[in-house]
């Protein structure tokens, strides 16, 4: 326990504490830090401009989460329903994209979606002669990139409870007269909710702080929290403001992770009770 605690303190608590502290100082004239106490960095967050960026991030991350959960849950369901000996291979294929770098996977979407990209070329080969569709540098492209990159997390998170699910429960439900849809809604879905919650929190937390995907697939036309933080640290050289936004983002993520942990704990408790009762 002690080494783990030490590791956590040195690599997590101290750096986060330093960032938090940084948020209460002023930016020096030349980008350094002026060590006078101020609350203005945190006050700036409610400025309509920055609050708007936060809402945009939340909307984009929320949509990406919703889509990833729907597709990911369906994929996990299909994998769990496949013959048992084939499931490891299917899971392996689902996580295979993780073997290549995030940036490369994102660039691959640029190759596909750009105006002179593979999709346009394929359309032309099929005889399409009009103006190519605008797919890249749209909100849709950003959401696609986020969904694609984080989908495996949802599949893995949802697969675990689905694979553990006792098939006799669904059979019992059917025997008692429930339709397939009711069985799914009243039996399967509630029992796999902790997996959905875990997958959803993963996608949302990773998406809301993402800066690469909006920069590359959004062409810089969409500013998310991650881009704003990146800009404060790397172009505006306003570390205190960057630190303040980071802390807000971390607080939101911690809140969500805590809620998810509580839900998981509650779910586990219910399962235990169910097993005992």
């Amino acid at each position: 326990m002690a080494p783990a605690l030490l590791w956590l303190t040195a690599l997590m608590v101290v750096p986060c504490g330093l960032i938090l502290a940084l948020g209460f100082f002023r930016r020096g004239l030349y980008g350094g830090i002026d060590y006078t106490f101020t609350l203005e960095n945190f006050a700036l967050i409610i400025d309509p401009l920055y609050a708007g960026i936060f809402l945009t991030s939340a909307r984009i991350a929320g949509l990406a989460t919703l889509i990833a959960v729907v597709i990911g849950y369906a994929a996990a369901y299909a994998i769990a329903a496949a013959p048992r000996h084939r499931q490891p291979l299917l899971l392996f294929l689902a996580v295979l994209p993780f073997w290549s770098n995030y940036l490369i996977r994102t660039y691959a979407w640029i190759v596909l979606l750009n105006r002179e990209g593979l999709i346009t070329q394929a359309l032309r080969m099929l005889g399409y002669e009009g103006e190519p569709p605008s797919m890249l540098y749209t909100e849709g492209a950003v959401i696609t990139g986020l969904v694609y990159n984080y989908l495996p997390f949802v599949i893995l998170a949802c697969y675990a409870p689905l694979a553990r699910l006792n098939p006799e429960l669904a059979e019992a439900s059917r025997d008692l007269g429930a339709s397939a849809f009711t069985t799914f809604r009243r039996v399967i879905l509630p029992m796999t909710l902790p997996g959905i919650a875990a997958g959803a929190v993963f996608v949302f937390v990773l998406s809301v702080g993402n800066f690469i995907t909006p920069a590359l697939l959004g062409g810089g036309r969409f500013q998310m929290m991650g881009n704003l933080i990146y800009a404060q640290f790397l172009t505006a050289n306003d570390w205190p403001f960057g630190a303040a936004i980071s802390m807000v983002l971390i607080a939101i993520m911690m809140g969500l992770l805590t809620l998810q942990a509580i839900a998981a704990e509650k779910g586990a408790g219910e399962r235990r009770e169910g097993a005992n009762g």
Partner: protein
Amino acid sequence: MTQQNPHFRLLLAGVAATGLAAAGPASAELVISNWDGYMAPDAVTAFTSETGEAAEMVVHATNEEIMGKLIASGGAGYDVVFVSSPFAEVLHNLDLLEPIDAGKVPNLVNLFPEAAALPHDPGNTFSVPYAWGTTGLCYRSDLVSPEPTSWNDLLHPAEAQVGKVTLLGTDRWLLAAGLLAHGLSVNETDQAKLDEVEADLIEAKKTMLAFDDTTFYSKLVSGEATLVHAWDGWCNYGIAENPAIKFMIPSEGSDLWVDTMVVMKASGNKDGAFKFINYILDAKNHAWAAENILYKVPNKPAMESLSPDMAATYPNMGMAPADLVALEQLRDVGEASRAYAKAVSAIKAAQ
């Protein structure tokens, strides 16, 4: 900076010192920080074999990245650093730069007279220019007609170009496009004028494809874009692949950017640092940048040594220094840089 708490400064110094002790390079070894690929790959080894000075090259991706490190450590750990002139001004204002000892850099005579009289540092007292150029419009002359003449052709393009223009996304240049279109200075600090330009650039977002600082020339080559906001040297990379690509400076004028070499006051081997700058200013060594990265260098014999084919293929390489310095140099805007950053955030966030 003035009200800095000494305890924090001590803490930072302690952290910096620990970092140095851990890194532990030989005491007199020169550390040179430059952008990756911005000088000959063998420049450091050739310099060492010519002068006997041990040197190590490290890279930074952006001015801001190296500035963060230099400001945090007070310049310790670096000897020669390549930064753009507004950042050299900042380092000078922070008193982190060693004055250039002209006696130890005899090759300074190779600089064009214009390069020794730049507004940010007349007489090269704390910085030595390495490369210079301007920003303008880079376009497919076979696809854009009539040819562009004004910054407004980029910000408010003709119907055929809608959705096919890109803008630089970096604070100073993005705003410069708008400032110049409004007939303002590229170093404007008046908030009302910045607001006016911000609104115009938000409007320009509706007709553009994307903000692009790194791949705009390949978008031109593929035809994904037809008219882009570009640095002269980077437009040359497009011209190299498609001769129909041209570069022009809009009628409202443009900026003059200068990348410089500076010597840190904290350097433990200033003589070695000056030797390195002198080595780079050698006509043959300095010509490398012009020949290989297609940037203009402010070195007279180096530019004169270039093959005439170069200016024929890349007309902007033949631009006279007098024409270049007639453009307004980008300067440090001090406190207004915060307003610049906020305007850029607002432009990028606008839907």
